[in-house]
């Protein structure tokens, strides 16, 4: 049985959990991160949405209700968090760009435009002007990318298809790591491409150093190249995850990956330890404080029964917006089904409301009122609340 006591144990290895863990690790605290599996950010575009839509995301935040986690976290947590994020990504060799006061466009696989705050450098050139001609490169057999959607919406654009010998996004990205393959791709592109202003590819330009791959192609072709985020498996999402994970490991965080929490040890209003459903003998992870960052329904942090919603690790009470029949609007495309408001209500210190647990903090999309789909604020919210909860936690430990 391990007697090792961590300062903080973070449960949930997504963007909010890792951000919280990183914040604490940089303060010199001993941090453990537990995750049942890979996080939802691996399915995302890899961009950091603060509040989607054209213009200044802060203005949109100003219009949010008082109970929204952004409001609870406060402007400083978000601003500091985004700056922190940019630094960490730079350190990990996966740089991001973006203005904190103005969203920027990215192009989706069906040719629509989405506005987001921070994008990986490989998507920086997505801000195609109306007058610019675009050439789209696709790959033979790729399942979820149909370039004609893009050429239909963008005038004077064209596309060509390259046979990479494998048709999954992960497979193609892996090929781009190989020098020989990259060379062959560039030669092919040089032979087939017509003069256009920019080149777009589905986001498969390698796993480890996509900026280098993008720059090689861009240099050879003499024009900007950008990636288009794809449906899962999303390579930019995977890169983001690996960079965050690598940063935490480099700063001394201990990762316990693959097994979820099977039981809690609690003494009064303090959580003492969690045990993991490891094979053979349960592993026990002790901590002075705990952070819950297990996400919403998709990641399993919340589970909806037929009539009630439960929080799957600590069994915290969950705010639910009405009865089951009210959870979803009849129209699929409603901006924000009611169920999105479900989650954990917290006090101003990001501890579960009700005061029953003094050393547990909550961050990320598991928070009530997040309405991530409606606001399109996923990673921004994760970062802001991760930083806010971590700061509260550190203060509580001091």
């Amino acid at each position, binding site marked *: 049985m391990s007697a090792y006591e961590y300062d903080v144990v973070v449960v949930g290895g997504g963007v909010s959990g890792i951000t919280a863990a990183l914040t604490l690790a940089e303060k010199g605290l001993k941090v453990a991160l537990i995750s049942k*599996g890979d996080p939802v950010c691996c399915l995302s575009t890899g961009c950091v949405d603060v509040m989607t839509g054209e213009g200044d995301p802060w203005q949109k935040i100003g219009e949010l209700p008082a109970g929204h986690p952004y409001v609870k976290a406060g402007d400083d947590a978000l601003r500091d968090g985004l700056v922190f994020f940019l630094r960490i990504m730079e350190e990990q060799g996966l740089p991001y760009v973006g203005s904190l006061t103005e969203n920027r466009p990215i192009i989706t696989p069906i040719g629509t435009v989405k506005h987001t705050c921070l994008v990986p450098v490989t998507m920086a050139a997505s801000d195609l002007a109306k007058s610019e001609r675009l050439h789209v490169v696709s790959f033979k057999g790729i399942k979820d990318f149909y370039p004609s959607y893009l050429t239909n919406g963008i005038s004077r654009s064209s596309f060509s298809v390259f046979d990479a010998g494998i048709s999954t996004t992960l497979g193609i990205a892996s090929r781009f*790591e190989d020098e020989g393959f990259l060379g062959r791709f560039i030669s092919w592109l040089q032979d087939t491409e017509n003069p256009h202003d920019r080149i777009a590819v589905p986001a498969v330009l390698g796993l480890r150093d996509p900026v280098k791959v993008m720059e090689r192609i861009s240099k050879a072709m003499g024009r900007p190249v950008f990636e288009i985020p794809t449906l899962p498996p999303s390579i930019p999402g995977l890169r983001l995850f690996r960079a965050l994970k690598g940063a935490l490991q480099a700063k001394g965080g201990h*990762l316990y990956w693959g097994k979820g929490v099977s039981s809690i040890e609690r003494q009064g209003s303090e959580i003492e330890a969690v045990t993991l459903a490891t094979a*053979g*003998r349960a592993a026990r992870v002790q901590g002075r404080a705990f952070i819950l960052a297990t996400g919403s329904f998709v990641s399993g942090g919340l589970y909806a029964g037929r009539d009630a919603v439960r929080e799957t690790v600590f069994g915290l009470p969950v705010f639910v917006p009405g009865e089951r029949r009210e959870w979803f609007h009849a129209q699929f495309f409603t901006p924000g089904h009611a169920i999105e408001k479900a989650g954990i209500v917290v006090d101003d210190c990001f501890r579960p409301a009700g005061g029953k647990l003094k050393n547990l903090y909550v961050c990320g999309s598991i928070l009530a009122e997040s309405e991530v789909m409606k606001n399109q604020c996923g990673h921004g919210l994760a970062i802001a609340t991760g930083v806010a909860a971590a700061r509260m936690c550190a203060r509580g430990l001091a």
Partner: protein
Amino acid sequence: MFKVNPDFPGPKQAGPDAQRFRLDGERSVDEWVKLCSQCKRCEVACPYGVNVAEIILRAQLTYSSEHLSPFTAHLFANTHYLGKLGSTAAYFTNALASTSLVKGALRLLGLSTTLPLPEYRFLTLNRGRKRKGRFRAPMKVAFFHGCYLNYNRPDLGRKIRDLLSYLGCRVVMPRQTCCGLPALGNGDVDIAARFARENVKELGSWVDKGYKVLYACTSCGLTLAHDYPELLGVPGGRKVAENTYNVHEFLSNAIEDGSLAVDFGPVDMHVAYHIPCHLRALGIGYPAARIFEKIPGLKFRILDDDCCGLSGSYGFKKKNEKTSALLGQIAGDAILATGARALASDCGACKMQLAHFTGLPALDPAEVIIESLRPAPAKKHA
């Protein structure tokens, strides 16, 4: 290996998706399911706790039970006997295995010769000293060494044995046979079950005497901790699993709770620590890294994003040769990119594969620890 082999449809399709169509009473037709190397990364990644690799493993076993297995499958399922034979005639085995005639023959039989075939040693662990350390030591451990340490690297096995006794444990090497994983990976659940029963009987008796079972090879460890009680349902398997520890987990627990006081001396090492897939699958974190943190002067970088590609016997089969080599290249490149001067990994297969694809010395984490415990050389006087 999904990212390098276009013929494998991926764990989700091979496992839960296809499972809806694998119905009782219908003959299995999914030969492609054997392409899965059982690295278990899918289970570690699955956010819903679905035992994807196990679903695929069962499908593999079903397929193998209904169809004729190739020669290589039979060969590797019996790694244990291969080891006995190979080590008894070690000199000849090693000499012959390096000749092009034998290599050609092996290729004809379906084996890959990309990697140099692992050498056998005559003085196996079985043939060496089986008890070490003070009889009345408070910490009693039964070392389950596994086939690789026994037949191919008994020197390393002895180092681990000696490290444990040096640190104050009573170490025994119980009678043991192959853990059974090669048999499972090659479609022979009967051999695996037989080995499992034998091991559980022996290890169980040591557990009853107050010993903890320790493993260094993380694949053996996963088999003992998970497959024995769950997949194979061996009676007594649960008791053994509950008392089985990774050697570094055991050591770091003991250091942290004060039962072991260790004075780690400084080293000058830069190591890339490649985490074996099966260590990740155990879910216990990376205990050797927790010890590394205590060693002054040790610079190490954890690499856990890639499978080395050998996956036990998988990469030794000609049909998987290309896949295995591609993966070895990718994992090897990641190691080289760290600038480390050596690589470390708990798993024998990882060591073999990555040594080949990086050209770097491949250490066991125990060897790194031993380096730190070496007494400092006496100062030379002018």
